């Protein structure tokens, strides 16, 4: 707010304050990012030494040779940032998106099961929360098991579940999405139980004096009131949904998807492929969360909430 006012007023003193506030915000982040990149480049030298040391000696040694060989090794232990960037560029922009070599194709395979699982998990989680809020005995019998269900490391047994579910003849995308569903429903249930109970007693009493049915109360009071909780949960859910989809692709035989790409890279020692897949997955996760944040802001604004 302060920065906007400074821009509009245009006084030199305010402009200076504005610049200072922008600097306060971004300089630390930029510094840390820069430090990480420098550290990364520096670490390339000792990490790759096993592979590069003979070549450096053969080339006559020296600092320049060390840098050149450490940062351009074909199958490095730790690839340098620009190598990873070049690999991403080559597999995203330099090939057609539907080719088997294209990361866009693999990302699409993973994203589609991520989104199906996210949708199913969100619906299941909301349904469970509505049940728990309305039926007292459901809360007592179901809630402890909802919590206990998450102490089973489902991600760890995901590949096995995929193999078993695969034998049942369901379409591939649903078996993969079921893992994401299992991971997604929990944050949504927990958040929505809290959210559906968030309207205060006054508002609930008002609905009662209107003689509103519990369905009307749910639709007109509880669901709108739970929206901020829903979005907070969805942001957590979509991130773990993507993780679930990636791990679900790990069992041997998976031919497409980010997870298959990781496994393939690890089998053939193709480190650049692993790093590129990781960065693209990270980018997708960040985009999904950002998209949900934008949706959250828009819907809260339409509801007239001060966000």
């Amino acid at each position, binding site marked *: 707010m302060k920065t906007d006012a400074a821009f509009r007023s245009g006084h030199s003193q305010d402009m200076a304050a504005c610049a200072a506030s922008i600097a306060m915000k971004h300089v*630390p982040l930029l510094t840390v*990012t820069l430090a990480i990149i420098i550290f990364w480049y520096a670490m390339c030298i000792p990490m790759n030494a096993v592979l590069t040391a003979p070549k450096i000696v053969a080339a006559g040694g020296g600092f320049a040779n060390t840098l050149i060989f450490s940062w351009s090794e074909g199958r490095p232990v730790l690839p340098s940032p620009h190598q990873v960037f070049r690999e991403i560029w080559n597999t995203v922009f330099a090939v057609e998106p539907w080719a088997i070599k294209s990361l866009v194709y693999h990302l699409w395979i993973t994203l589609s099961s991520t989104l199906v699982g996210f949708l199913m998990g969100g619906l299941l989680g909301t349904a469970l929360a509505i049940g728990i809020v309305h039926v007292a005995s459901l809360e007592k019998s179901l809630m402890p098991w909802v919590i206990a269900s998450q102490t089973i490391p489902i991600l760890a047994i995901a590949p096995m579940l995929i193999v078993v579910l695969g034998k049942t003849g369901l379409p591939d995308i649903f078996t993969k999405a079921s893992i994401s569903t299992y991971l997604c429903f929990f944050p949504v249930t927990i958040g929505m139980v809290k959210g559906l109970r968030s309207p205060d007693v006054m508002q609930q009493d008002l609905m009662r004096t209107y003689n509103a049915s519990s369905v009307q109360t749910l639709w007109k009071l509880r669901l709108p009131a739970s929206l901020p909780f829903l979005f907070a949960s969805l942001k957590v859910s979509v991130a773990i949904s993507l993780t679930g989809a990636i791990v679900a692709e790990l069992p041997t035989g998976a031919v497409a998807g980010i997870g298959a790409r990781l496994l393939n890279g690890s089998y053939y020692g193709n480190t650049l492929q692993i790093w590129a897949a990781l960065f693209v997955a990270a980018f997708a*996760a960040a985009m999904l969360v950002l998209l949900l944040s934008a949706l959250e802001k828009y819907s809260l604004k339409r509801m007239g909430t001060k966000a």
Partner: protein
Amino acid sequence: MIRATFTLLIGLALCVCVALGFSRSNPPTGQDWALSMAFVICGWVTAWSLSWVADLTLPKAQTRWLVPTIFGVGVIAAWQAYVHASAIPGVLLPSPSEIYTKFVSSLPTLAADFVQTIVRAVIPGWLIGCCAGFLTALVCDRYDFLRRGLLPFGNLVAALPIVGMAPILVMWFGFDWQSKAAMVVVMTFFPMLINTLAGLNASGHMERDLMRGYGASWVATLLKLRLPAAMPFIFNALKINSTLAMIGAIVAEFFGTPIVGMGFRMSTEVGRQGLDMVWAEIAVAALAGSAFYGLLALVELKVTFWHPSYQRRR
């Protein structure tokens, strides 16, 4: 009460009907999806109404533990009944009794896997990751510049699929437990960092002003006010990390292990169609995970007894 009993009876009757339906279908293979779904739903209704009846008839003090227990036992009974009625092959879904038999008969193997995965990888990794995250949070708190730089970064990393780092770490630290412990460290570091930083800001302005009024140093304020106030957040991170640690260690084993470990056992037994052994490993993982979580919850109760979420429950 009448409604609950009525639901229970209907659920039981439906279960029997579906079981008869299975025995009529020739041969009973468990591949009939409509019947299977019907059985699962009936079993769930029965288990739920059973716990409903228990909730209404038993004295209040016992229901907090008994109702979920009855529900769980009901679900396991329905599972057993389903496997028997549908004659579903053990390759798809072994019955709880088969899993129990396998569990008891292969205790040494399970123990070896437990030591390799939990004792060598999960616990050290969890300890190192949590301590590193906590210490980094303290440093970030002391130097605001670092906090501004690292916090957005930590928030981003928390949303990323970090499990994908597993193949890289296996390459760096070798096939044995070291790479799994490293995976756990990476997975647990950022949740701890974020939660501790949030917790250190949880103490109120009034209290902090009071400490300033006393002329307390940063260390004294930290020890006497801000760390105790941060404890609920720190325990939250410890609990989240206990689950993440199990996941990290087991998933990392899919990318290469010596011939022992829970993840290794699961992936090989799936290949050999020994699903009862896989479920036995899942049982170990669930028991270990629940025990880990329960222990943390107990310690949390002792440390943060003053917090409103515990005060209200009494």
